[in-house]
């Protein structure tokens, strides 16, 4: 049975209340840290654990923490990124809704480690009902002395607040999130200066994903080494995966990193296989931004090895034949789905969500959406496919923030793996309205030299 570190008690009746959460071992990690560990000890355990950012980028959390500047007399801030809006991702919402105190406990530990005395949870505006759950839990924590002045006699003070966004995907980018929290438009900032030096109100700031912060709780409880004992190589611990699409059991699953993709899709413990006994056509393993994989590259890498749910294995083969673990937004497509339509849908999303600051992204995402619309609705030309390829190349790497890359990658991967389906849309316009193209033919790949 797979170990669960975050969702172990998710189904306990009343776990959203402080009382039940306490009975199930809640706030034990705060007691331990405040009594017997220095802030640096906590950072050290997180470093040892090998925990990597769960928001999508996978940057080592301990290292990120060690970058924070500590000038005298300047307050520092910890921000929790709960602006979850990557299509395919709904794990943070689940965690906050079910076990709000786990996030609060993680916030206390992380704030203690970083020396922050006022921390914020920035939550997307659409999750207004989750915001209310969090605020209620925070009020309980204040009343019981887990937040506020001199927490449990330790001398450590922490105020924790929740602040809503208002419907902008871009605010999940850390500098846009900071701008938004300052009450401005969510336009990402140029780096440097990095938030660790000048973030919120020009003060040193760390921004971490909900799941990352929650994972600090088991790390403090069990120790960094124990956490690092789970997983494979540099992919340590457990990860929440939000599974959606044409599968029998969509939902949020906590996996030990290193489970095989095959097991994740077909085992009854997880997705339970493809709906209606159909065949799998494609899979987006880490949220809409990551490259889509065709059926023959999902459970096996190009080299023929079994693909695992780890940062490394999902990326095996680079973008030529691999993808990314990303935020863990696992979307499965069956044989009846149209890749051109899906790519158009995602491009529309990125066009809608581009903040408009950088021309390649502001204009390019719109062009891609239009060209893909044309192809999908039977007015496309063969040159359009190369045109799309060209546009995405001009966006990637040419923008302030990664939204440009995130818009370019799914288009690039769709053309790379499903070119024949795009050509079919040109040759047989509107055919896909009646029947879809089905599975693409398997291609062989030259081995990539490392």
């Amino acid at each position: 049975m797979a170990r669960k570190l975050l969702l172990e008690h998710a189904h306990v009746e009343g776990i959203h209340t402080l009382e039940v959460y306490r009975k199930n071992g809640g706030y034990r990690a705060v007691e331990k840290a405040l009594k017997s560990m220095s802030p640096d000890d906590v950072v050290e355990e997180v470093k040892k654990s090998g925990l990597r950012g769960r928001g999508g980028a996978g940057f080592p959390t301990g290292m990120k923490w060690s970058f924070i500047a500590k000038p005298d007399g300047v307050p520092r801030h910890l921000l929790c990124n709960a602006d979850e809006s990557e299509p395919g991702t709904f794990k943070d919402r689940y965690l906050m809704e079910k076990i709000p105190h786990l996030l609060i406990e993680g916030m206390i530990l992380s704030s203690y480690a970083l020396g922050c005395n006022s921390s914020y949870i920035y939550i997307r505006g659409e999750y207004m009902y989750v915001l209310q759950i969090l605020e209620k839990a925070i009020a309980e924590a204040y009343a019981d002395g887990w937040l506020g002045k001199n927490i449990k006699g330790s001398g450590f003070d922490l105020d924790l607040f929740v602040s809503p966004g208002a419907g902008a995907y871009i605010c999940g980018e850390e500098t846009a999130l900071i701008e938004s929290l300052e009450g401005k438009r969510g336009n990402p900032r140029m780096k440097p200066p990095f938030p660790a030096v000048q973030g919120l109100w020009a003060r040193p700031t760390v921004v971490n994903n909900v799941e990352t912060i929650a994972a600090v709780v088991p790390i403090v409880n069990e120790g960094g080494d124990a956490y690092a004992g789970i997983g494979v190589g540099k992919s340590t611990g457990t990860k929440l995966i939000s599974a959606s699409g044409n599968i029998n059991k969509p939902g949020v699953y906590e996996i030990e990193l290193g489970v095989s993709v095959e097991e994740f899709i077909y085992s009854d413990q997880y997705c339970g296989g493809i709906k209606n006994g159909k065949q799998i056509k494609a899979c987006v393993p880490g949220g809409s931004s990551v490259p889509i994989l065709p059926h023959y590259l999902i459970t096996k890498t190009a080299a023929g090895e079994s693909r695992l749910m780890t940062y490394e294995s999902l990326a095996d083969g680079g973008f030529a034949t691999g993808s990314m673990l990303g935020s863990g937004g696992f979307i499965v497509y069956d044989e009846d789905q149209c890749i051109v339509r899906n790519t158009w849908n995602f491009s529309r999303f990125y066009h809608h969500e581009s903040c408009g600051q950088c021309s390649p992204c502001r204009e390019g995402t719109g062009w891609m959406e239009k060209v893909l619309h044309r192809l999908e609705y039977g007015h496309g030309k063969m040159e359009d496919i190369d045109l799309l390829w060209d546009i995405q190349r001009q966006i990637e790497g040419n923008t302030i923030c990664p939204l440009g890359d995130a818009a370019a990658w799914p288009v690039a991967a769709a053309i790379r793996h499903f070119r024949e389906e795009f050509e079919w849309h040109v040759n047989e316009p509107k055919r896909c309205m009646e029947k879809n193209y089905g599975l693409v033919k398997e291609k062989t790949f030259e081995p990539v030299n490392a």
Partner: protein
Amino acid sequence: MAQFPEGKQKSALLRVLHIAQAHFGYLSTEVMDYVARLLHILPIEVYEVATFYSMYDTNPVGKVKLEVCRTGPCMIEGAEKIVTYIEQKLGIKDGETTSDGLFTLKTVECLGACGYAPMLQAGEKFHEHLTEEKVDQLIETYRNKPVANYMGLENNG
């Protein structure tokens, strides 16, 4: 506002706009100017934020906003059919409001309910695993009962 340090009251803007919109129905210029005075910032600082974020309406909308998610996983599970169904049922197109001022239909991008698709948000409530019958039901419910838009605040606009 007390959440933010002295002199950083502008940070409360997004929340204040949510409250204002829930109360007045939409953010008119008068409302935005009032918010600017409240937070001691320039009106333009409010306008630019109100027009940037997709949840704010600067034009009147219906008492109940039906926001249907149209992105990726929801599309696979039939979001387009749900939109068409609502369009026919209410006799409005995406972005329009019924003549009685009750319902506005809006398609929106991913709301983070991909595993429970298709879905829509009405006020602050999520309705998931939608079917035509469920849509019928919830439209009936909202016809008779106003929807909470923010922290239980109803639209009085």
